[in-house]
């Protein structure tokens, strides 16, 4: 009677399944894009903090360099590169977590979870939103660094794309952890969406090498993909070399953290279904 509902017919093409999955993911992304289209303060908020960070750190760099007309120095590059790349990780994590929070705030999660959207598709949609939010949020700061301080992020070469990717993935791993806490403790855990990655800044080796840290803290830093990215960034800027070892370590650690956090997310999702938390997660 209803030929258009996509009923199972005995054999289902993998291609059809893949197309339907992509459409469901697009449905989630479309929902958030429609929200941004109708809410300019949300778009402004995306760019506000990265731009502010860039302005403040640009002047700090100029002051520390002691040569206010020569902010293209290597020290300036290391600091400004650190600021910009760390924003990628921060915005990636927030982009994922806050998109999930938007569903809680709008009391829409119940509808989403009774649709055929699989948990893995929900995660893929949130990752896509995170990429969009990073691009919109960080691009003005990158342009500002170039215009005000003559710092070109891409001066360190195409490897910067790999740095971007590694930090995006680290942001997703942390966001999966935050989302797991939201599923476990409800919106009461939402402050973590803004603060959790800031707490990792001291051990992420953003502005100084891992070797500066106390010996007991160095293994902690080296367990984070970010520390390897920033070691690689400093090598690219100071020695014009690609630190393949650090790059490989960053991606391997990303894969490990994503696997662990993905497992925790699925456990918490299933736990929320047992406790009935999906019905009243906003409370």
């Amino acid at each position, binding site marked *: 009677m209803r030929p*258009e509902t996509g*009923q199972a017919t005995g054999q*289902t093409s*993998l291609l059809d399944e893949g197309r339907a999955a992509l459409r*469901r993911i697009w449905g989630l992304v479309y929902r958030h894009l*429609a929200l941004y289209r*109708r809410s300019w303060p949300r778009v402004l908020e995306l760019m506000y903090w990265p731009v502010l960070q860039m302005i403040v750190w640009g002047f700090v760099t100029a002051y520390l360099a002691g040569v206010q007309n020569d902010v293209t120095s290597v020290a300036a590059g290391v600091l400004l590169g650190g600021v910009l790349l760390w924003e990628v990780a921060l915005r990636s994590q927030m982009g994922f977590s806050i998109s999930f929070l938007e569903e809680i705030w709008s009391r829409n999660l119940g509808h989403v*979870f009774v*649709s055929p959207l699989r948990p893995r598709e929900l995660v893929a949609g949130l990752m896509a939103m995170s990429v969009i939010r990073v691009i919109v949020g960080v691009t003005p700061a990158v342009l500002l660094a170039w215009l005000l301080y003559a710092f070109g992020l891409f001066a360190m070469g195409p490897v910067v794309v790999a740095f971007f990717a590694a930090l995006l993935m680290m942001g997703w791993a942390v966001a999966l952890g935050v989302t797991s806490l939201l599923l476990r403790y409800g919106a009461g855990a939402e402050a973590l969406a803004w603060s959790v990655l800031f707490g990792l800044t001291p051990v992420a080796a953003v502005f100084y090498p891992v070797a500066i840290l106390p010996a007991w803290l160095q293994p902690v830093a080296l367990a984070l993909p970010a520390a390897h990215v920033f070691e690689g960034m400093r090598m690219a800027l100071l020695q014009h070399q690609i630190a393949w070892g650090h790059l490989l370590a960053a991606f391997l650690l990303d894969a490990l953290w994503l696997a662990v956090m993905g497992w925790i997310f699925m456990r918490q999702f299933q736990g929320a*279904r047992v406790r009935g938390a999906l019905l009243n997660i906003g409370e």
Partner: protein
Amino acid sequence: MTKPVPAQPAAGAPAILADHLTKRYAPDAPPAVEDLSFAMPRGATWGLLGGNGAGKTTTIAMLLGLLVPSAGRITCLGHDMARNRFAALARMNFSSPYIALPSRLSVGENLRVYAHLYDVPLAEKRIAELAAQLQLTELLDRPAGQLSAGQKTRVALAKALVNRPELLLLDEPTASLDPDTGDWVRSWLERYRAETGCSILLASHNMGEVERLCAHVLMLKQGQVVDQGSPASLLEKYGRDDLEEVFLDIARGRRREEMPA
């Protein structure tokens, strides 16, 4: 590039088969639903009746896969919800006044989101069709948060019908509506079921609504079915003139023999 679909639904299976469902939110808590069994046939409208805390919402949440039963088994449209719930969810839908749609998005955008999530073919055509049927065409560009309660109910209904569901679960579909709008929604649901053969399970506190729409009623109290039957058979059994009196008898634990002549 094909693979077998797991657990094919049995042809002619009931719309809903609940088999000894029990739900406890904590191991030492009393059950919110206890040993609930029923088989709702296809094309029927059934009602879940009960006071606050009787287990209606818990039952609906389990049927939708939002909640995992502590014991028992659910089959919707022939799909085992424990193993293959997404196949069933694609053919079902749900509406509740207690779960909102994003208020900043326009009505059209909201319906488009759910058309994508349910992989509805020719989505724009379907949205235009629903908008015309539910008198929403003029509202498609308006933010959902700016609508009246009656308009929101019609939008929620449009969302629930976007994928042409074979099974529709409605939680208090006319709550907070004025009598005229409530009557319009009930008439619309009656007509929709008659035209499409959709199976509808509705939870409601409105006895008139249940009496009018439902062929069969499950009376819940403290998570258990305490009585069931067609509205007419329940009226006869309790010797009452309307379902509200039957509801009060059951809620207050009165039996027919105890009632005043």
